[in-house]
């Protein structure tokens, strides 16, 4: 072992990275447009908002989750021409469900390395193509030899994790259900929302059981949709706007494949990713320094779980913050003001639209009815993926 320690070069980038535009399509259980057409719609809106021409795009990053949804080998290549990748460097990144925040992270290094000054980040998912049910596509996420023969359903792993989380911290299902209630209500203000609604904790607790403790209203729905972001270098950003949103920290982490060898009660993959992102963004006390958060919430308990991973709450404290209204849109730490996946929908990778895009809109004070009550400077978005393995975290700020 010749290398004793890595010398401290880290985070010496070529240039800063700003976000100047975002766009998303409406999210529905089934849309007629092909995946390419959905990408086109989202990109057009993002370019319009950024006020930048299509010919100025230098590189394209595609984020899309399992090929088994859209039903294509090399799905990235298939989506290429609708994603603006024609005649350009185009690359698809993929970390399972974490792709929704990982794609903008990839956009970040395209710009920060100086290879591109304008990078388009597109995320797309068309889950409805998969039959008999989009959930069937998840049969193939399991180990082919040790797990698939047991005929597992995707929801099992969430149910097992949720049970462990509830068991260790002695959390009641009622407290977790509050997240579902909050997010579905927040989503009423989102024009793209698929499953917004006013519901009560009782509705959640009495909904149809899927894999207990998970019930129907604990789960986000499968959706079709796309989202896009425009990431640029400082000199382009200055040309376009006085108030770009800066990416100040990124982090990602992948835990071991052997998920049955870990204690599932705490998402240490998120904690590791957050550690990297916070270090880069010079954040030491996330609970105080973060003004608005969009943790990944495909299941209601996941929002709580991820808040703890992000250091926005102590272990086991997230349900208490939720009960006290701290995470409401007018609270001290608004969490998922967009409505999140629970309210707006869950087109796996395209959830960038309610994670990275939403934080961008919140920090630039353009979220309309969804705008949080407090003054905001720093926001964090996060996604999770794989077999409880991936954490991807991005910190943004409206101050450089």
């Amino acid at each position, binding site marked *: 072992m010749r290398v004793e320690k890595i010398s401290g070069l880290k985070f010496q980038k070529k240039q800063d990275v700003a976000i100047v535009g975002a766009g998303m399509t409406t999210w529905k259980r089934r*849309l*007629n*447009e*092909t995946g*390419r*057409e959905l990408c*086109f719609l989202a*990109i*057009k809106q993002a*370019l319009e908002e950024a006020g930048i021409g*299509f*010919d100025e795009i230098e590189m394209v990053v595609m984020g899309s989750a399992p090929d*088994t949804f859209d*039903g294509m080998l090399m799905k990235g290549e298939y989506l290429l*021409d*609708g994603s*603006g990748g*024609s*005649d350009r460097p185009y690359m698809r990144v993929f970390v399972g469900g974490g792709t929704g925040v990982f794609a903008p992270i990839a956009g970040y290094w395209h710009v920060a390395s100086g290879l591109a000054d304008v990078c388009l980040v597109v995320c797309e998912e068309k889950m409805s*193509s*998969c*039959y*008999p049910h989009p959930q*069937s*596509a998840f*049969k*193939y996420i399991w180990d*082919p*030899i040790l797990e*698939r023969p047991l005929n597992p359903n995707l929801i099992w792993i969430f149910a097992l994790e949720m049970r462990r989380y509830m068991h260790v911290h002695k959390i009641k299902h009622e407290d977790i259900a509050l997240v579902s209630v909050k997010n579905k209500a927040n989503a009423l203000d989102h024009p793209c929302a698929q499953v917004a609604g006013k519901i009560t904790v009782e509705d959640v607790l009495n909904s149809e059981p899927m894999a207990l403790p998970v019930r129907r209203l604990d789960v986000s729905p499968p959706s079709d949709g796309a989202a896009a972001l425009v990431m640029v270098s400082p000199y382009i950003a200055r040309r376009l706007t006085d108030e770009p949103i800066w990416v100040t920290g990124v982090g990602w982490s992948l835990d071991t494949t052997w998920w049955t060898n870990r204690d599932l009660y705490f998402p240490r993959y998120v904690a590791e990713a957050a550690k990297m992102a916070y270090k880069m963004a010079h954040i030491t006390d996330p609970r105080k320094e973060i003004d608005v958060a969009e943790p990944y919430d495909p299941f209601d308990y996941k929002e709580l779980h991820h808040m703890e991973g992000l250091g926005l709450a102590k272990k086991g404290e997230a349900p208490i913050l939720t009960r006290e209204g701290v995470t409401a849109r007018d609270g001290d730490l608004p969490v998922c003001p967009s409505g999140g996946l629970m309210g707006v929908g869950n087109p796996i990778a395209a959830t960038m639209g309610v994670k990275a895009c939403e934080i961008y809109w919140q920090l630039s004070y353009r979220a309309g009815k969804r705008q949080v009550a407090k003054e905001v400077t720093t926001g964090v978005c996060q996604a999770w993926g794989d077999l409880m393995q991936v954490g991807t975290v991005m910190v943004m700020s409206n101050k450089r």
Partner: protein
Amino acid sequence: MIEKIISPKELKHWDGIIDVYWIYTSGEAGDKFFKALKEDGKFIAAKCKKCGWVYFPPRMYCEKDFSETEYIEVSGKGKVKAFTIARLDLKEKELQDPQIYAIIDIDGTNGCIVHLLGEVDPKDLRHGLEVEPVLKKKEEREGKITDILYFRPIS
């Protein structure tokens, strides 16, 4: 270090299958095309409103400048640009009847279609051969690309 398995009989293989299926919608442009093909036996192309490039197969967007397109009707006839005689099937077994695939430039468009050629002796194949589409009977058409059976030389 532990000993490795040497006997091939003790080495396991595990068979698996991806057994879901997919239903793909044809999308905005595809829907226009296939409905016209199914109902009227007509062919639709798409013209970029900005640069004038005529896409065939049609698309709702122009991939070169990302502006919208408008739909126009074309004849569906064209010229063979390239062809190959495929003799192996998906399992790399010999095909009973070799199939002739061709890239066909469609008249009045900047685009082309990859499809089969039929009613033609392989010896008569040449580049630039003028061909026309042969469609299924109207009642058999389903709004899919296979509604076109093949292209044949214009006699």
